[in-house]
């Protein structure tokens, strides 16, 4: 496999395990259990079978003909993670870790969520595997992503509101880590992105890499060639790493990560960690992050709750420094444009997170020749965002 972290869990200078001592043995246990599961053909078989029958994989690689015509340039293909069960890519990792937790004999699952997609995915898998499920969610996010809160509750998960700090994803992760510190013996922390201490960035990446493996095989079959560009949004970075990683050794395939530019990079109200951040330690990992001059973590902003996070996965930081990937920012207004465009031209309503990538891909495609190929990860569907979008666009009911 390309680009593995080293034995200490570092991708180049990034990664590691910056957590309280109480959790260090649990991380070692998780690492051991994961290695064991990887070597067990029965585990792989079960995961593959459920990917097919429960999630509905493989998800299609769809030629967005109208979008391509509209942009007038490169061919745009959409990897349809929005069609996965629960409506986003998050289910891939939730299923993998859920099976792993079961294997480790853990009976209680905790998770954090921003947009609610990971919370819903975790609640879904816990319902299916009969595991107790507690999801931490910032009160600000509970307000803006209400439909997902209802879905989690329907599936018997307990949603615990987090009212500290910025009341968003960052604070939900703090609270989930505190819960894990207190209940580590019977609890598995089902972390939803490629962030956190080692081995999480590796485990989450591996379960999400199914996106890129499928896309690679699909594009080769349909076009008999590799794509020129991969485009995906980056908050913590799980859908983008999932798409990018299997193409790591295909040096001619360029990776573009699209971060949330919020109200604009100059305003300071954004979540463009890789574009503007500095290297530091947050939530157990050394990576780029948004901090003030005293090392305090900054409050971020994005119209999409799923990208509203001041850190980013260590593998992305490694890709940035080694120039394997390029990171750009798309602001809230442009995102809404991407959201409308995909809905109008293709009849697909994207999640606001994914709309960042859509906007950028269309912008790029315009300047590229018609023989170029772009794959965009459509990481989730947009039903959850209708309230925000209607309000932002001033649409009447």
């Amino acid at each position, binding site marked *: 496999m390309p680009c593995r972290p080293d034995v200490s869990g570092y991708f180049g200078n990034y990664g590691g395990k910056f957590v*309280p001592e109480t959790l260090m043995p*649990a991380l070692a246990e998780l690492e051991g259990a994961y290695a064991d599961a990887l070597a067990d053909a029965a585990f792989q078989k079960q995961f593959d079978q459920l990917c097919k029958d429960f999630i509905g994989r493989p998800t299609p690689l769809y030629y967005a003909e109208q979008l391509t015509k509209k942009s007038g340039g490169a061919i745009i293909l959409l990897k349809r993670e929005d069609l996965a069960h629960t409506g986003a890519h998050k289910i891939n990792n939730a299923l993998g870790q859920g099976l792993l937790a079961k294997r480790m004999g853990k009976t209680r699952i905790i998770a954090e969520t921003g947009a609610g997609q990971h919370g819903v995915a975790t609640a879904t898998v816990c319902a299916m595997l009969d595991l107790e499920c507690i999801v931490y969610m910032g009160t600000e996010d509970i307000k803006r992503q209400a439909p997902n809160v209802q879905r989690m509750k329907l599936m018997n998960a307990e949603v615990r509101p987090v009212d500290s*700090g910025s009341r968003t994803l960052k604070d939900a992760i703090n609270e989930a880590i505190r819960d894990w510190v207190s*209940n580590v013996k019977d609890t598995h922390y089902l972390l939803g992105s490629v962030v956190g201490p080692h081995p999480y960035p590796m485990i989450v990446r591996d379960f999400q890499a199914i996106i890129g493996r499928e896309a690679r095989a699909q594009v080769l079959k349909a076009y008999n060639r590799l794509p020129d560009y991969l485009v995906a949004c980056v908050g913590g970075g799980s859908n983008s790493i999932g798409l990018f990683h299997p193409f790591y050794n295909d040096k001619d395939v360029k990776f573009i990560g699209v971060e949330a530019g919020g109200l604009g990079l100059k305003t300071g109200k954004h979540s463009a960690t890789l574009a503007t951040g500095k290297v530091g*330690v947050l*939530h157990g990992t050394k990576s780029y992050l948004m901090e003030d001059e005293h*090392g305090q*973590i900054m409050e971020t902003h994005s119209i999409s709750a799923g990208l509203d996070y001041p850190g980013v996965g260590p593998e992305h930081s490694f890709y940035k420094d080694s120039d394997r990937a390029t990171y750009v920012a798309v602001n809230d207004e442009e995102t809404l444009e991407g959201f409308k465009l995909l809905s109008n031209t293709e009849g697909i309503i994207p999640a606001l997170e994914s709309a960042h990538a859509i906007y950028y891909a269309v912008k790029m495609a315009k300047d590229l020749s018609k023989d170029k190929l772009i794959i965009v990860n459509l990481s989730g569907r947009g039903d959850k965002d209708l309230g925000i979008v209607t309000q932002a666009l001033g649409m009447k009911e």
Partner: protein
Amino acid sequence: MSEITSVFKPDHKALIAYVTAGYPDKTATVNIAAALAEGGCDIIELGIPFSDPLADGATIQHASYLALQQGITPQICLDIAAEIRQIITTPLVFMTYYNPILRYGLEAFCKECIKAGVSGLIVPDLPPEEGLELEKVTHKHNLDLIYLLAPTSTDQRIGTVAARSRGFIYLVSLTGVTGARSSLSPELKGFVKRVRAKSDLPLCVGFGISKVEHALEAAALADGVIIGSRLINLIEEDTSLAALKSFITSVRKALNEKKNTGEV
């Protein structure tokens, strides 16, 4: 022998007090430190507030938040420490998370600590695996980097920390975050015993110690006790610091009276 290790003597249980620097304000912290010294504390732990204190429970989270709201920075904490050391001789250690230190610069921060009269550092999100870089710098400046152990620590990890911690070893009494509890964890006794078998360093027990009885119980097993959240609560309840002084004095007195009992 460092300033911290010299605190530990036979027949004397060390009393270590944690307060968040800048809570409720900068001047108050200096007065609080003086009161703690007068009440018989052997070491004062000053918390440098961090925006995301993931090893802390609600009380210290809230104190950190209020301190940050007032603009408390690591630099101001260094100033507070220097001011405290002008009026008392009690050794000071900083407790903070790794990112503010990293941002200040490891070398610059350690240098400034020594200048301000700070003798040690406790960094709860820095396990020994990640601590090599900071260790190098603290050793160079004769600053004690105090590592933590928890009831979940394996014997192998206990061995690592025993070999690398300086000053003392901070034993987290329970599987959890900081904050007052109604009773001590039943797993504490066996945990202290496991560490004692592998280390000659002084062992101090913290997290969840909020009553005189807890302090006595923990001191019977270890060489010192660390009290934090309860002190923050007492400061909040009574800003005249009378309640804080009376509590610390009573803990000190109880520890002195029981000093010859309870070896395990």
